[in-house]
C-alpha cells in the first residue's frame, strides 16, 4: 500500500500522560456475556508468559515482583527450577506503561522489574544486555524473549525512534491495508498479531509484530495459544472471541481509544497532534 508515514513532526513534545487503562462497558443486551469473557481472558497472557519459559518455548520473560506477593512468587520460581534476576526498581502504576519509572527501595509504592529464565546464564545475559554501557542490546533481548527477527527489526526501527505504541506502523505495514484518508487505515489481520487490546492483557503474542499478517508472528502466536489452552481452554477461547471482534483504534493527544461493539478501552499512548485511526477486521 501507499504507506502513510507517521513522523516525529506528527508528535507533540512535553506531553506525557501517566500510565492508565480504563475499560468502559457499553449498554448492550449481551454485555454480561462479554464481561465474563473479558474477565476470563485478561489474566491469561500474563500467566502464559511464565509457562512459556517453564515449558521451554522461550528462554526468558520479563516480570515484575511486587511486595505484596514477593515471597509467594519467589517460592514458586524456586520450585519450578527457574531463576529470576532483578533489573530495576520501578514505581508502581495502574494499567499499561510503555516505560519504567525508576525509583529506589525507600519507595513503598514500587515493584522490581526483572528477568525470569530457566538458567542463570540466560538471565545474566538478559540483564547485562539491558544494562549494557553502550545502551540496551535489543537484538539479544529479542532473541532471549523468542521474538521473530522481523519483529526485532521493526522494534529497532520504529520503537527506538520514539514511537512507543507503534500500532499505526504495524497497520500500514500490513499487505492488504487500505488507506481511507491520510490518517485512517483499514486493515484485515490475524487475531494472533492483534495487539490493539494488549493494554489490558488481551493478546496472544508478547511481541509487537511487524504487521497484522506477519507469518512468523502468527506461528509464535499459535504457540502462545497452545500454552494458554493448557492453562485454561475456556479462557483461551474467550480471548480468541474478543480478538475476533471488529475494532477501531485511534490515537490523539497522548490517549489511545479502542472501541468494540461491547466495550471501549482508553489508555496512554503517543502524543499525536492529530487523530490517527485503524479500522481492524479479524481473520483467524
Amino acid at each position: 500500500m501507499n504507506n502513510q508515514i507517521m513522523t516525529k513532526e506528527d508528535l507533540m513534545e512535553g506531553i506525557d500522560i501517566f500510565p492508565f487503562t480504563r475499560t468502559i462497558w457499553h449498554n448492550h443486551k449481551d454485555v454480561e456475556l462479554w464481561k465474563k469473557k473479558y474477565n476470563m481472558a485478561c489474566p491469561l497472557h500474563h500467566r502464559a508468559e511464565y509457562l512459556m519459559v517453564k515449558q521451554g518455548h522461550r528462554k526468558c520473560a520479563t516480570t515484575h515482583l511486587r511486595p505484596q506477593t514477593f515471597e509467594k512468587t519467589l517460592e514458586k520460581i524456586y520450585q519450578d527450577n527457574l531463576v529470576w534476576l532483578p533489573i530495576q526498581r520501578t514505581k508502581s502504576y495502574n494499567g499499561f506503561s510503555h516505560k519504567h519509572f525508576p525509583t529506589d527501595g525507600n519507595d513503598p509504592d514500587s515493584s522490581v522489574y526483572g528477568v525470569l529464565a530457566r538458567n542463570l546464564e540466560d538471565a545474566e545475559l538478559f540483564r547485562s544486555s539491558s544494562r549494557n554501557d553502550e545502551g540496551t542490546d535489543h537484538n539479544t533481548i529479542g532473541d532471549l524473549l523468542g521474538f521473530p527477527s522481523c519483529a526485532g527489526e521493526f522494534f529497532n526501527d520504529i520503537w527506538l525512534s520514539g514511537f512507543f505504541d507503534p500500532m499505526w506502523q504495524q497497520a500500514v505495514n500490513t499487505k492488504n491495508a487500505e488507506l481511507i484518508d491520510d490518517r485512517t487505515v483499514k486493515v484485515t489481520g490475524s487475531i494472533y498479531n492483534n495487539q490493539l487490546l494488549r493494554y489490558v492483557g488481551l493478546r496472544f503474542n508478547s511481541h509487537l509484530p511487524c504487521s497484522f499478517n506477519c507469518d512468523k508472528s502468527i506461528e509464535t502466536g499459535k504457540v502462545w495459544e497452545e500454552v494458554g489452552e493448557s492453562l485454561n481452554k475456556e479462557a483461551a477461547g474467550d480471548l480468541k472471541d474478543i480478538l475476533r471482534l471488529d475494532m477501531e483504534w485511534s490515537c490523539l493527544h497522548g490517549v489511545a481509544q479502542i472501541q468494540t461493539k461491547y466495550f471501549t478501552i482508553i489508555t496512554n499512548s503517543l502524543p499525536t497532534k492529530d487523530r490517527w485511526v485503524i479500522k481492524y477486521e479479524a481473520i483467524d
Partner: protein
Amino acid sequence: MALSIKGTIDCNLNCKYCYEHELRKTQNRTTWDISKIKQILKKLYEEKKEAPTLHGGEPLVMGKKDVEELLKFGYNLAGRVGMQTNGLLIDDDYIDMFKKYNVHVGISIDGPWPLNKARTNKENTEQIIKNIYKMVAKDVTPGIIVVLHRANGLPEHREQLKEFILEMKSIGINGGRLNLAEIDREEVKEELELSPEEAAELYEDLAKFVLVENDNLRWQPFRDVVDNLLGLGTGTCVFGKCDYFQADAERVINGDGSISTCYKNANEGITYEKDNNSRKTERYELLKSVPMEYGGCKECKYWPICYGGCPAEGAQNGIQDWRFRSRHCTAYRALYSTVEKHIKRLLPNTELIINRNKVSDDDYQIRSGNSLKPPALHKMIVDYVRNPSSWRGVQGCKNKQKSNNKKDCKSNNGKNRANNTKHGDKAHGDHSDHGDS
C-alpha cells in the same frame, strides 16, 4: 447533577440535530418496563437524594398512564419531579398532573415559527406555544430550552428571537437555556451548524441582551458565566470537568432498567454503563498541555472556568472526538470576554478568577465558597482593604489574606482610613484630579 429517566428514546418530532438519531438506529428502545424503572429509581434516589427528571426521547409518548405512574413515584420519593418535553402533547390532563406532582417542566422549543423549523412544522410550533400559554394560565410556569443553529441564530433571526425571549418574560418565564447545537450528523451540518464566528457573534449579542439591556432575564449560560468569572462556581455542566464516558453530571435510567450516563455522547449509537470507580481526569491532563492550534487549551486564560467545554462537543477541523476541546470554543471565549469586559467596566477593582496568578486546578470543579480566596470583590470590602472601592485604587492591608490578620486590618480600619486619606472618607464630587485618593 441530574437523575434522568429515559423510559423511551422514541419521539413524536424529528429534530434534525438530535443527538439520539444514531441511538434510535442501533438500539430498540420502543418498550419500557415501569416496574424495573421504579426499582432502579428508588435505589439511585436513595444514594444521592436527587429529584428525578423524565427525559427521552419525548417522555409524553409513554402515555398518560405510565407518565403519571412515574411522576407519582418520583413525587413520593423526592417531593418534586422534573420533565423535559417538546410540549406538543401537553393537555389539561398533563397540566393537572404537573400541579399534582410538583413537576418542574422544561419545554424544548427553538422559538416561534419559522425559528423552530429544525424541530418541527408551523402547526406544531404554534400548538406548543399555545400549550405554554395554557400551562402558565394554570399556574404551571415552565422553563425553556432553545437550541441555537442556523435556522434561528443568524443575525436575520435575531429580532424575532429576542422578541420571543421578551414575550416569554411577559408571561412570567424569565429564563431557560440558550444552547449552541451539537450537530454530529454530517447530512445536516451544512444546513444547521453555525460557524465559530457566527456562534461567537450570537453569544456576544445575547449576553448583552440578557445581562445588560434587560432586567430580570435569567437565561443560561449567560448568568453562569458571570458567576464563573467571579469564582462563585457554576450550575452549568458544560463549563465543569466531566468525564466523556462517565459524565458525573447525569445518571440515566434506561427503559429496561439499565443505568447509563449522559446521552450527549451517544452520537455513535452507543451509550455507556455507569461505573463510579473509573478514573476521570485524562481529558483534563491532556487538554491543558495541548496547544490550542492542535485542539487543546494550553495557556487559555479561561481554562479554570471552562475546561475545554463539554467533552461531547469536542471537535477540531470537523473531526469529532472528546480528546479535542469544544467545537464551541470561539463562542465560549467570546462570551467570557464580553462578560469580563462588562464586569470590569462597572467594577474595575473586581478581581476575576482569570486575573489570579494561580487558581487551583486540583478540585474536580471550582465550587462556591472554596475557590476564589480572597473573593472577587475583596477590594470593595473593608475586611480586606483600608479603602474599599469598586473603582478607585485601593490601599491594601499588608496581611489581608490571613483570617487572623483580617481582624487586625478591620480593627484598624477607621483609624487608618482617616490617617491615610488626604481628603477624608469621601471623594470629592466637584473635581476629578484626584480620583485615586
